């Protein structure tokens, strides 16, 4: 079966602003087993993955509807042997291309090939600043050493590099070293991102949850480094929800800025949206991407402000944070249309914070690694 390109004649498509970005999750396969993996608990298998031709059509449709950035992600996107071919399709369609990778599966020859085909940017994850910590967290021996090689190949090609650092209680005390590592690897940008407690991270939250002191120290280090490294390294900081006052504008607002295509072709408003059980997701095999974006039930469920509970609808921040994260509301309030419990106004806020403090105070249990 191929990807759907047209709707039946006479079908009307709602007019909504075009998405800026598409996350293309090429596969869920990944050699790493990070305890905070953002992929869903139930993952589709290799046999269900979209074909090269199907992905190519999705990329072309995305460019036509106004998507500017495509992020090749996973799982580990380098696990797809057609990554290079799909990159070329995206480049030809005029998309800005970003590869989000663990580095495992990349060789020097592949990095050179990706560069020659016009890859715009690479995001390389680091789990820690030394091999033993990093490989314990990633659950993959030799991962750190390989990443260091990959970073050198990227630098030799001159491809702009962002280091992605997911922070949690086991590596937060190394924030300064993590930033230093990014500078050493020649990165232009680093994302210092506190773990989002969804998906597999929810299973491991007691081993991931940082203390208040760790979070405060990390924020101070980031503030200082931002000033000091101006013009050398741009630092994007994602603060933790469990210690926040107000929620983040998750995804820049549901169905507002970006969309996510899963390995099997489901189109999601956010990569964690499948944790909301009542939502039904359209598939690129059945409908054109533009129609799914504009008219899909899942996209319209929490788009804009009409769906909001009274608490959000009457709040002057409603178009600042767009109600925050629906998946977090689902996880902690049991209701995806509730106010994000990260918000100080949520009746679940205190419980979420207390839970975080209790978990952070305990001895961290061993990681529960996911297996494929």
């Amino acid at each position, binding site marked *: 079966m191929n990807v759907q390109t047209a709707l039946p004649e006479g079908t009307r498509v709602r007019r909504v602003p075009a998405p800026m970005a598409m996350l293309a999750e090429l596969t869920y396969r990944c050699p790493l087993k990070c305890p905070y993996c953002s992929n869903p608990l139930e993952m589709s298998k290799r046999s269900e993955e979209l074909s090269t031709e199907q992905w190519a059509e999705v990329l072309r449709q995305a460019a036509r509807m106004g998507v*500017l950035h495509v992020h090749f992600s996973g799982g580990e996107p380098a696990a797809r042997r057609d990554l290079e071919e799909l990159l070329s399709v995206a480049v030809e369609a005029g998309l*800005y291309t970003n590869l989000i990778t663990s580095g495992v599966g990349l060789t020097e020859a592949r990095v050179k090939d990706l560069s020659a085909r016009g890859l715009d940017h690479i995001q390389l994850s680091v789990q820690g600043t030394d091999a033993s910590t990093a490989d314990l967290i990633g659950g993959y021996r030799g991962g750190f050493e390989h990443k260091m090689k990959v970073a050198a190949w990227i630098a030799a090609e*001159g491809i702009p590099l962002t280091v992605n650092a997911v922070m949690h209680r086991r590596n937060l005390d190394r924030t300064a070293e993590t930033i230093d590592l990014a500078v050493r690897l020649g990165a232009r940008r680093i994302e210092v991102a506190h773990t989002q407690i969804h998906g597999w991270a929810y299973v491991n939250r007691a081993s991931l949850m940082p203390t208040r002191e760790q979070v405060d120290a990390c924020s101070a280090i980031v503030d200082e480094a931002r000033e000091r490294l101006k013009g050398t390294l741009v630092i994007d900081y994602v603060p933790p929800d469990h210690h926040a006052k107000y929620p983040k504008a998750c995804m820049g607002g549901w169905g507002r800025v970006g969309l996510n295509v899963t390995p099997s072709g489901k189109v999601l408003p956010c990569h964690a949206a499948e944790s909301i059980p009542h939502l039904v997701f359209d598939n690129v095999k059945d409908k054109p991407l533009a129609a799914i974006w504009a008219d899909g039930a899942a996209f319209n469920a929490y788009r804009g402000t009409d769906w909001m509970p009274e608490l959000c609808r009457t709040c002057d921040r409603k178009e600042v944070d767009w109600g925050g994260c629906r998946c977090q509301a689902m996880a902690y309030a049991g209701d995806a249309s509730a106010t994000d419990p990260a918000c100080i106004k949520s009746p679940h806020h205190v419980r979420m914070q207390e839970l975080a403090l209790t978990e952070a105070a305990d001895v961290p249990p061993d990681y529960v690694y996911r297996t494929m």
Partner: protein
Amino acid sequence: MTTPLPAAPEDRLPDAAVPKLSRGVRTRWDEARETHMLLAPERALRLDAIAAAILAETDGERSFAAIVDVLAEKYAAPREQIAVDARKLLVDLMDKRMMEVVR
């Protein structure tokens, strides 16, 4: 502890310097939104007509002074004002690691 004063824009980007958008940073016309955009890692910035005009002349060959000359001639505008606007934009992009001085 004393913090050193940040370098003045004229020192960061002197008249003779040749600025260029870094690799992975580019402008394009966005048909869907009918605007010029600057695309960079994780960033898409809407460019107004003035910014788009400045970046269109920033080709990695011309010096800053030459860029200002071209703009002053093309838009029949005062050179001093153009120099201030252009330098502000380009130095801001240098801070964001989107622009570099090639020589």
